[in-house]
């Protein structure tokens, strides 16, 4: 794996600027100080794969912006810090980016716990931050502040979208999710929404393996013994992979329907081992949007990193492009001006449609996707077929609900 140290990153930016910018920029523009973007993310720890995709997505966006002449004649410069999935490092690095490196804007971290930490620092220093991976409902709820913006479907939205998208024929539903906050919230919001859209359905069994559990067999036998119509899983990453592999030998996927949160990284890791016919819910899969900007993005990403982009790369790219559009619209790096610009922004991103932020919680009206796993000849791994796109306004909490959460 190539190293993308800060120096390399700067080197790449400089090279690109030199190569593409020769003749295109005047000397005066070249001397303008860059607009600095700070990205604290977890390049170390269990979520490191997501952080890598995120950094690549932001980098690609910045390279394109700079190649087109930057913003207000100024280049963008990215500063990346590794918070190692430790919230305290998230705080220290974000503060340091603001106070020492004097970054102009922040773009979102990786894990939700670090997201909470980064958001708190952004609040204290009144810095605009755009989140592209963390999605705990607390960020838009009790921890919301006016400089916070998110283009990630929140945990609430995803859980409701899952309940919304399921066929009404599933009555007895079992749940399995890592024993941590997000999945406890997920089962709650899922259950609440289910009561609305499919009142006869019941959650009959819940299993809570710890995060990083190597062996799911006892949980699998427990799930199967309750003979559910459907199992809803909030496992992800390496946990989901271990679960699927172990569940296969129990014939779980023949015996019951399985619906799960799913990341592109999981599809890639499992390859042909991924069973067909699993209901997968995804944040922002590149194959979820056909044609247009997405195809160009997939090609550019592949050319630059020799890889198919993940959901995280899609959202990171969109987040950076959207922030750039906000800065352009404000025609300044003033925090309040950019905040106001983002509040009124109409951004046409990779996933089609127009992204806007609503007033109450600065939640972007981003979709989520539900589909069935199957083979696509163009990709070296399984993908989703029969993709249903679930729009944000169908599932996001009402402003009243958000305000009630903040008390």
């Amino acid at each position, binding site marked *: *794996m190539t190293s993308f140290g800060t120096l390399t990153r700067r080197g790449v930016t400089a090279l690109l600027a030199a190569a593409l910018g020769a003749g295109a920029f005047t000397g005066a523009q070249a001397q303008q100080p860059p607009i600095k973007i700070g990205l604290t993310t977890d390049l170390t720890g269990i979520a490191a794969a997501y952080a890598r995709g995120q950094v690549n997505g932001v980098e690609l966006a910045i390279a394109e912006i700079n190649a087109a002449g930057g913003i207000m004649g100024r280049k963008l410069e990215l500063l990346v810090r590794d918070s190692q999935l430790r919230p305290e490092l998230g705080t220290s690095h974000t503060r340091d980016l603001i106070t020492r490196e004097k970054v102009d804007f922040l773009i979102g971290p990786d894990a939700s716990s670090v997201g909470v930490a980064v958001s708190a620092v952004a609040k204290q220093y009144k810095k605009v931050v755009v989140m592209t991976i963390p999605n705990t409902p607390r960020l838009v709820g009790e921890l919301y502040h006016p400089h916070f913006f998110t283009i990630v479907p929140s945990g609430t939205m995803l859980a409701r979208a899952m309940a919304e998208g399921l066929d009404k024929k599933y009555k007895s539903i079992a749940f399995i999710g890592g024993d941590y906050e997000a999945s406890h919230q997920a089962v709650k919001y899922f259950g609440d929404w289910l009561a609305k859209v499919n009142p006869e359905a019941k959650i009959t069994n819940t299993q809570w393996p710890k995060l990083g559990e*190597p*062996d799911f*067999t*006892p949980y699998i*036998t427990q799930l199967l013994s309750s003979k559910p119509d459907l199992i809803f899983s909030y496992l992800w990453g390496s946990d989901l992979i271990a679960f699927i*592999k*172990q569940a296969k030998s129990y014939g779980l996927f023949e015996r019951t329907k399985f619906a799960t949160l799913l990341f592109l990284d999981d599809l890639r890791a499992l390859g042909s081992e991924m069973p067909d016919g699993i209901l997968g819910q995804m944040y922002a899969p590149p194959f979820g949007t056909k044609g247009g900007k997405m195809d160009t993005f997939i090609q550019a990403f592949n050319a630059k990193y020799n890889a198919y982009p993940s959901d995280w790369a899609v959202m990171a790219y969109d987040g950076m492009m959207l922030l750039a559009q906000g800065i352009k619209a404000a025609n300044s790096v003033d925090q309040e001006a950019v905040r106001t610009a983002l509040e009124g922004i109409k951004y046409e991103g990779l996933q089609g449609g127009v992204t806007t932020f609503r007033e109450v919680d600065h939640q972007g009206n981003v979709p989520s996707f539900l589909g069935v796993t199957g083979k696509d000849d163009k990709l070296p791994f399984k993908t989703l077929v029969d993709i249903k796109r679930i729009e944000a306004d169908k599932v996001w909490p009402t402003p009243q609900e958000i305000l009630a959460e903040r008390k």
Partner: protein
Amino acid sequence: MTDVLIQILSGVSRGMVLFIVASGLTLIFGVLRVANFAHGSFYMVAAFVTYTVTRMAGGGMPGFLASLVIAPLCVAALGAAIEMLLLRRIQHRDHFYQLILTFAITLIVADGVKMIWGRDYRSVPRPQLLEGSISIFGSPFPSYYVLLIVIGLVIALALRLMLERTRFGKTLRAAVADGEMVGALGVNVPLLYTGVFTLGAWLAGLGGALAAPVGSIAIGIDNSIIIESFAVVIIGGVGSVSGALVGALVIGVLQAIGIMVAPRLAIAFIFIALCAVLLLRPQGLLGRRA
């Protein structure tokens, strides 16, 4: 009733992987008196080597068998190098320093794996033959877990024979019982130490290679296995292979049954068992008082 049986059996199969890893840890602990934090790293490296080997061999049975041979050997070589080049230099110092040294190795290996294999998590397919399940009183039980249980028992038996019948084994047992005496008897202590550490690393590697096809291969799997392995060693008794077997089965089955009875408390069961053993029988269930 069958449910309970299947539950217990899956606990046993989990316990077997844990036993294979922990048996290596307990031997190292018993002979070198080092709480080897790097043991989890050995397990993780073996899992990643398994990934590479299986990919190169193109999956299927040959790849699976090749990885079972190659991955533990790679890790054993790594272990031998660590013992000879690093641990030996400080073997006369307080054990505290050796503990820290192995901890430093876990950090270096964690990032080393990231440098070599990248940050993505991986998956290794099982050979076709071991994909399915057998039927136990009409309930399916995965054939791969049957294999795990068999291999675990074979390793237990082989270790027992080695400890009782071979010269190396006898010296090893003597070293567990009384480290100083072994030195006085003219045994080549450095060779013994290297041998035990290499064997221990090989066992951790075997555990990692066996677990790879049923789990996921990701950075961080070293952290979760090491704490459980320590628990097994303490419960079973330091230096006792039979103790490690008992400890691993206790933890595996306790966890499996715990999930049935009180799911949210399943994690706590292990620690409660551990605390109970340490307080009532600090030398472990099958350990000898020092």
